[in-house]
């Protein structure tokens, strides 16, 4: 996923219309019954334009029936430096999976 790009200091002091447009993350629902899935990102001046641009950029071939756009800066991510540890807990807990229970193998409808 694209990371929010902060404008350089000299740009923040410039006129608002000289600033690079903010970054939005785009999520597309490909058909009814499915979740919105991250498709990519784009720049747009506001939410309305972001939705329009997302339609032009990510659904040129009927790829979606619904779109979400989210300011990239609003996304909170897990710490990339934590790597494994953060997701450590489920490891070694095989009993959370049906495949852990082998004795009942062969029993019908179980």
């Amino acid at each position: 996923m694209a990371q929010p790009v902060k404008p350089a200091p000299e740009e923040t002091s410039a006129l608002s219309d000289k600033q690079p447009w903010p970054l939005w993350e785009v999520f597309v629902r490909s058909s009814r019954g499915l979740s919105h899935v991250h498709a990519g990102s784009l720049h747009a001046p506001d939410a309305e334009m972001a939705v329009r641009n997302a339609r032009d950029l990510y659904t040129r071939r009927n790829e979606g029936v619904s779109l979400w756009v989210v300011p990239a800066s609003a996304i909170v991510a897990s710490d990339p430096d934590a790597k494994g540890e953060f997701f450590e807990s489920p490891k070694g807990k095989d009993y959370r999976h049906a495949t852990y229970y082998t004795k009942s193998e062969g029993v019908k409808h179980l």
Partner: protein
Amino acid sequence: MATQTDAGDQKLHAVPSAEDEAGQAYFDKIIAEDSRIEPADWMPEKYRKTLTRQMSQHAHSEIIGMQPEANWITRAPSLKRKAILMAKVQDEAGHGLYLYSATETLGTPRHVLNEQLMSGKAKYSSIFNYPANSWADMGAIGWLVDGAAIANQVPLCRASYGPYGRAMVRICKEESFHQRQGFEILLELANGTPAQKQMAQDAVNRFYAPALMMFGPTDTDSPNSQQSMAWNIKRFSNDELRSRFVGMIQEQVKVLGLTLPDDEIRYNEETGLWEHGELNWDEFYEVLAGRGPCNAQRMERRREAHENGAWVREAAAAYAAKKAQKAQVA
């Protein structure tokens, strides 16, 4: 959280920090497993730079690549062909945007990449510096140029950098229409009047060699390739991909009833590779250096388009600011 700018400062450290060493070890492990590097991961500064250069060049090529075809929209021979050409040019713009987004995740903002293109600091594929003189060129560009691009890009779907691979998957899906529509333009011309068939043959003659050069210099003259392959960015060498492409088109050209302007094409049983005649690499480097037939024109058009679009960007930003202010007041 490590930000992208932090990563950019790594080169300032003369001695690798403990954090860098751990990062390098993790990076090496991911590459060895043939897994994917994601934007927030630590990565060697050279990996970041190589990708930024390659991906932005790729994005610039898509954007400049709109020009030779946009030029033919008004003169396309039918409404159907105009519609197809417009869809294709729109796709090229889309591909440029996917790639700029992916490149941005490496830390360089899009407006900076755009400035690099317009100042001439960044390169784009030399193929777009050749003119599209006839309608048949739209066919040859689709068949040969997009064909070569696909042969190059399919392995990039597995590039080790996640955002690049994902952008390439999307692009490759869309490119296949580009190649087919080009092939069909040529097929129709080849089955038309003798003059039309000649026009198709001329286009193939002109685009054949430049298309082969799209794979880049020969392996012996491509010093960066090895590192890119070690990093799993590149999966096959330039010559391997070129050879594979020659094998495909020498078969396809028969369906067209045309010929390729190269009588040295042959399959080498020993190496399992398709061989072709010598390419004019001096010409390649001339075009790359900015002295191709259309370099100046392409750059001028790009700058012009950017300047002419300034009022749209400014108006959109002003409107967004006004609306945000109103919302605050309400």
